[in-house]
């Protein structure tokens, strides 16, 4: 039993990597533009389906889809930015309905292009077992956990050291002051959308490589990303990673100990617990959200 539980914790940990990428994209855009992109999960799913096409039509490894995915998802993400930028009044509420509508469009584009069937990778290379100590996993899980951690470190470096990264943080904390310092807020917001798109593209290929995808999965991903940001609290990259791992572990423990149908309830339980006990999240600064 203990072995099973430890194995579940290990699988959940690996799953947490791509969850963190999705959640960071959502949080980055929210930080820079105060807009929650409800179509974010669909962007991730779009990338996953591109990986499926690359594998099934060209017979290549799903990893080969990453460059194509990054380009397409970044274009889609920038398109979301330009449409959101056209909102004139009451942006906080209108952007929600707007991105929800974009999510509906993307879901149906995916449905029409790739049909409603459940898809998963056929690559044996990806599915081969990798043994680390007493733990088992697929090669794709370990591989993409490594990729996620590398991307997160890269994001941290970008946000704290590079000019644009600092600009994103400046716009997040005070838009007007940032403007006075010569930062173009519009361009910075676009950059945040593009970086979120890059993270979403990698996460999508990862999801396809070790999981199953259906056109309706996008909304679930957005909710998961949101739960992670609530767990983590705003403005903490390590917090998001830990929140994502917590969610992954909670889900995989539920699957092992109860049933796979209850998987989503685990995340929700965690979410409500945090909401009641510490509404600022586990690592958030102690200020009111919203």
């Amino acid at each position, binding site marked *: 039993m203990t072995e099973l539980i430890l194995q579940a914790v290990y699988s959940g940990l690996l799953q947490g990597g791509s969850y963190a990428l999705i959640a960071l994209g959502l949080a980055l855009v929210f930080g820079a533009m105060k*807009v929650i992109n409800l179509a974010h999960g669909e962007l991730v799913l779009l990338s996953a389906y591109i990986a499926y096409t690359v594998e099934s039509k060209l017979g290549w490894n799903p990893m080969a889809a990453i460059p194509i995915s990054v380009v397409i998802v970044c274009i889609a993400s920038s398109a979301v930015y330009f449409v959101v930028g056209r909102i004139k009044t009451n942006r906080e509420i209108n952007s929600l309905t*707007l991105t929800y*509508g974009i999510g509906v469009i993307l879901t149906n584009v995916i449905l029409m292009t790739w049909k409603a069937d459940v898809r998963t990778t056929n690559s044996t290379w990806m599915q081969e077992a990798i043994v680390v100590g007493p733990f088992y996993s697929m090669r794709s899980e370990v591989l993409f956990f490594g990729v996620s951690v590398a991307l997160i470190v890269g994001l941290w470096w970008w946000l704290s050291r590079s000019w644009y990264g600092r600009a994103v943080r400046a716009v997040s904390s005070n838009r007007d002051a940032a403007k006075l310092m010569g930062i173009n807020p519009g361009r910075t917001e676009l950059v945040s959308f593009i970086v979120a798109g890059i993270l979403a593209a990698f996460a999508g290929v990862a999801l396809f490589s070790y999981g199953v995808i259906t056109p309706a999965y996008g909304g679930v991903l957005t*909710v998961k990303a*949101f739960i992670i940001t*609530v767990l983590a609290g705003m403005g903490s990259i390590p917090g998001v990673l830990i929140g994502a791992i917590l969610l992954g572990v909670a889900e995989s423990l539920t699957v092992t100990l109860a049933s796979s149908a209850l998987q*989503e309830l685990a995340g929700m339980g965690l979410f409500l617990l945090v909401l009641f006990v510490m509404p600022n999240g586990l690592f958030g600064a102690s200020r009111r959200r*919203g």
Partner: protein
Amino acid sequence: MKFKPTLVASLLAVYVAVPLLFGADNYVMSLVIASLVIGGIALSWALLGNLGGMVSFGHAAFFGVGAYTSAVLSMQYHVPVFAALVLGGAGAVIAALLMLPVLRLRGPYFALAILAYAHIFRIVASEWSSVTGGAAGIGNIPRLPTVLGIDFSSKTGNYLVILTIVLVFALAYALIRRSPHGLALRAMHDSDDATRVVGVNNTLLKGMMLLVSAFMCGVVGAFNAHYINFLEPDYAFSALWVTIPIVAAIFGGYRTITGPLVGAVVVYLVDQLIVKNLLPSGHQMVLGIVLVAMIVASPDGLLALVRKITRKKHAAT
């Protein structure tokens, strides 16, 4: 309310003329009933959005909980169907009470939290199979009964019931909006803090609006369960019960009372009669496009857009 001849005439038209003209045509009547169901949800959504200032993506939860409550009560506990409709609304209110903690989150956080709740209720409905029949669903849900010689289980009977439900809700909405609470709620839009300072309990009022909205949506869901006699989790909690009403409310103008209703009829009929024939598998895409176009062009609805354009023309001449 003042006596308005046009109001009486339109009431007569919808209560008498529609059944007389189309009562024999089952297809037309089912389209009309379905658009009224959508209209009912759109109205409850718009009430929360307009008065409560909250965008909800979780109204499918209220719709589904109302439907299941009413179906289970009438089948397993033999509650009369009309009483079960009201209790379905009460069930949705209980679901909304569970959501109250999310009121401490504002704006976008609230919207996403309520979306997450809708997922929970769907999972509960599919897993709690001893009561809900699980993923297989419930069949043979009792139809509306015959009362005072009127057979409410017929298409015309169903039409009269859902029409009455929607009109009563519209009236209730109008009364709330005119009341001092409505004034406080509208003031809250301009400044949350200022209304708090003059002694309005914002959170309480918002919470009340959530409960009222949930009740309305739950009753409509309960009606729909008895109308189609069948329920399954994926149907009762389908995202469609959120998408179409939102599009309808935004399209018609969610800050008005008639807007969501008119929007529901137009959007649903166009979707079913035109778009579905052109794009059988992805016809919902058009809903998304309409939503995006409306928010960008005129978030206050088509009527506001028309008014804006005509005003510009007037100014030009």
